[in-house]
């Protein structure tokens, strides 16, 4: 992230210094302003889902779900930790339901738990799976198409499913191979 950030920032700085030096500060401030708007949107999403997840956690519901998914996550992520497994199970279930916003807090929690185990393989694998999007129902896109007056807003369902399956499968495959090659 450091390398990418520095490279993009520096080259943009140079370009803007040549083309429009007076716009530099205003675009930086605009970016910062957008980040605050984004943070407010994120807080709203997290407030709803983390409030709910705390309830599921306290009542033992998420523990039950994690127990059901444990054999699977144990094989895929190679972790035995109960807290990590619980967060992993919730992350995967939210993702499959297309609730991307709800999945993120669980992923962050799972990564924190995996950090305690020193399991960086599982951390990276979880990132690969989340970053290639594994949602079954692209709710946002369908809503957007419906509001734009599409005849059948959900006819992108099958192509989306195919593409997201291909990208996740390919990324995991590449990652497992890459992990074996450069350790």
């Amino acid at each position, binding site marked *: 992230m450091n390398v990418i950030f520095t490279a993009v920032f520096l080259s943009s700085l140079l370009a803007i210094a040549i083309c429009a030096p007076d716009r530099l500060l205003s675009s930086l401030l605009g970016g910062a302003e957008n980040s605050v708007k984004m943070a407010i949107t994120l807080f709203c999403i997290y407030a709803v889902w983390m409030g709910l997840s705390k*309830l599921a956690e306290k009542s033992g519901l998420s523990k039950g779900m994690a127990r059901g998914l444990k054999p699977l996550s144990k094989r895929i992520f190679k972790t035995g930790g109960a807290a990590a497994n619980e967060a992993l199970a919730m992350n995967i279930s939210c993702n499959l339901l297309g609730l991307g916003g709800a999945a993120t807090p669980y992923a962050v929690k799972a990564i924190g738990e995996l*950090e305690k185990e020193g399991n960086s393989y599982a951390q990276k694998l979880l990132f690969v799976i989340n970053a290639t999007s594994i949602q079954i129902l692209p709710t946002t896109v369908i809503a*957007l198409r419906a509001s734009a007056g599409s005849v059948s807003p959900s006819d992108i369902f099958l192509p989306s499913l195919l593409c997201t399956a291909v990208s996740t499968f390919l990324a995991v495959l590449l990652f497992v191979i890459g992990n074996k090659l450069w350790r």
Partner: protein
Amino acid sequence: MALIVPVIFIIVFAFAVIKKVNVYECFTDGIKEAFNFTVSLLPCLAAVFMMCALFEESGLSDLLTRFLSPAFAFLGIPEELTKLVLIKPFSGSGSLAYLNEIITMYGADSYIARCACVCFGSSETVFYISAVYFAGLKVKKLAVPIICVLAATFVSTVIACLVCRIM
């Protein structure tokens, strides 16, 4: 499908009541965590958003779009989608705004718009996710996973443009 979310909420709330959990206190506790979490994200978000704004404003993104369009066209990705494909890994809100623009410009049922929707729906904001997930952790060497994800996303974009011609 619209019932999924209400059903999840009802199940969780009902289960909590059965298990005699203090629902209000517990829900507020969760929101407190959400608040702290959002605040801890803000520095990373601000930095990444500044970078994106600068990249856009400096004209470099337009330059890159113009430079890459022919190569994308060769792979079957319509020229109109180049910018969306480039922005998506960096910014969810930015690419959503751009997707909306494409839909209104070409019509929701056009090939371009459907293609854009599939590309958008089957990919994620890779750099944003990596910033959020690994903020403040010691994990290094993220280059390999990021490259894997970007390569796979690109392949699925090519497939998306192909599939939308048929389906």
